[in-house]
């Protein structure tokens, strides 16, 4: 078990290193990074000063070392637009994104599990058809557009909910639903197919033969086992959450890390963008690590491998 955790940890660090390497290489391969690091109206002298300060006049391997050692210490440079260390900006905004998480996850799971289970246990009925049409539309509808349609219906037309920005509880409803819908379709399909597989196993047949009520067979015996593959893909859902946060926070002017990312893109704020990407990578990889360990704990076959 220890060896397994250590192995995963090492893999995570290697991946993080590769992400850092790509960020480093992209800024160098596509021109002078000093120009990315200064405002557009900087003079030639200012550019040269930055070049010297960052060691850009030195060989690449020295530059890489400077960049990596800075990143490890949490020094990602200063945001051009905000004139603040990029790290501080990230951690200022992170809580706002995390505040959306419980509600949106709750919405996603609250829709995906019942629909997934019902569509598997009542194949071919109206509920199965409903679930599969939600799947078809959910995959095909752009979420940013769905959010705008939501604003049009609930803020403009019915005047029930605020169209954006942070505030009281009512401000959370639409952003959380938008963010939640990012994973609903995928999660539902996964639960459906995994349920269908479980329903076909011997132990479910036995549970039925011994006369357990159907609901107990479905919701207790089958669902528990059907959820294992969902847990494995939890890491992928976290990645989807980051993408979702970027889109949702852009539409609803929500001051979280997603909005910060897009601000950095819009203002060509390279130091900030690079910090956001590396820190997002750290978060995603840590969550994946925790999920892997949990998974090994729950599934002895991996632990003893």
């Amino acid at each position, binding site marked *: 078990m220890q060896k397994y955790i250590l192995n995963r940890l090492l*893999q995570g660090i290697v*991946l993080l290193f*590769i*992400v850092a390497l*790509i*960020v480093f290489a*992209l*800024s160098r*391969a*596509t*021109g002078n990074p000093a120009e*990315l690091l200064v405002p557009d109206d900087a003079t030639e002298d200012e550019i040269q000063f930055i070049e010297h300060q960052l060691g850009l006049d030195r060989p690449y391997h020295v530059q890489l070392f400077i960049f990596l050692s800075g990143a490890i210490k949490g020094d990602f440079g200063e945001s051009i637009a905000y004139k603040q260390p990029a790290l501080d900006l990230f951690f200022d905004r992170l809580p706002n994104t995390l505040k959306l998480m419980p509600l949106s996850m709750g919405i996603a799971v609250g829709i995906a599990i019942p629909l997934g289970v019902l569509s598997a246990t009542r194949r071919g009925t109206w509920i199965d058809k409903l679930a599969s049409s939600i799947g*078809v*539309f959910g*995959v*095909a*509808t*752009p979420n*940013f*557009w*769905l959010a*705008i*349609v939501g*604003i*049009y219906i609930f*803020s*403009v037309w019915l005047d029930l909910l605020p*169209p954006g920005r942070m505030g009281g509880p009512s401000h959370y409803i639409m952003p959380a639903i938008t963010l939640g819908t990012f994973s609903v379709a995928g999660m539902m399909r996964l639960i459906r*197919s995994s349920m269908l597989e479980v329903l076909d196993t011997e132990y479910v047949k036995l549970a039925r033969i011994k006369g357990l009520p159907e609901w107990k067979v479905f919701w207790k015996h089958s669902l528990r086992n059907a959820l294992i593959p969902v847990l494995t893909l939890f*890491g*992928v859902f976290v*990645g*989807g959450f*980051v*993408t979702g946060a*970027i*889109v949702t926070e*852009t*539409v609803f002017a929500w001051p979280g890390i997603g909005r910060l*990312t*897009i601000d*950095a*893109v*819009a203002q*060509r704020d*390279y130091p900030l*963008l*690079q910090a*956001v*990407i590396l820190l*997002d*990578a750290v978060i*995603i990889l840590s969550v*994946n690590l925790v999920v892997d360990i949990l998974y090994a704990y729950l599934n002895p076959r991996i632990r003893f491998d």
Partner: protein
Amino acid sequence: MAGDRANTKLPRLGLSKEQQGELAYELKHLPWIPLIIIGIMVFAAVFAPILAPYSPTKQTLRDKLLPPAWQEEGTSEHLLGTDILGRDILSRLIHGARVSLIVASTALLSGGVIGGALGVISGYVGGKVDTLIMRAVDATLAFPTILFALLLAVTMGQGLLTVVLAVTLILWARFARVTRGEVLALKTNDYIALATIHGCSSIRIMAIHIMPNVFNTFMVMLTLHVGLVILTEASLSFLGAGIPPPTPSWGQMVADGRAKVASAWWISIIPGVAITMVVIAFNVFGDWLRDRLDPKLRQL
């Protein structure tokens, strides 16, 4: 009934009765609605300059924010209305179809070919090469590739090439994974062993004996991913990291109308409907093609 109609309509083809029946059956079970939507989109994209009533970038501020023709204040001169700068939405929609299709075809080709090739190599060669490629695939699938797309947009600048590169980065891993699985199954066939005994080089086996056999899967994968690419391009353009304005792109058009939902809903809503319809059409068509050509992919 279907057989009768086939008899009256198809005698010139010189087919036997059974064949006619089969053909009628096939025609009846083609996914017609998706095919019509795809047909309209491709037609609009190819003939955009002829079909569009106005230039997609021409600004007429006098006519700005006109609602669609069926609204009270709408005019028949701008069937789908105009945007904040007085550009004709129908014309922008038609030209936007072109952008979507160009991005989709180039990105699918590059992502598909790179991913497919790596998948064949990974599956056939196996060992350390396989482990390395598959780890890269896992990492790509777990990481939100949109972040790299944004990074590319900032370092390389916005443009068609940037979008295609970003989408390629998203696609290759999916193609590599599926192709590898397919090759692993093919490898156990006797004819591969026979080719090896005959002294064929690995490259020859991969190119001549394996690739033609994964072609069906490849085509199905291509079709199944058109929708995803159109959506990704729209999202990137919406976020300001896709095709730069004033070139019309559907995602960009949705973003244009975002601040004006209250007074001019049509600017955002209409292009979104177009995106949804086209993506559903491609997905349904892809599902149909998969069921016809490669039913084992269904579990994916």
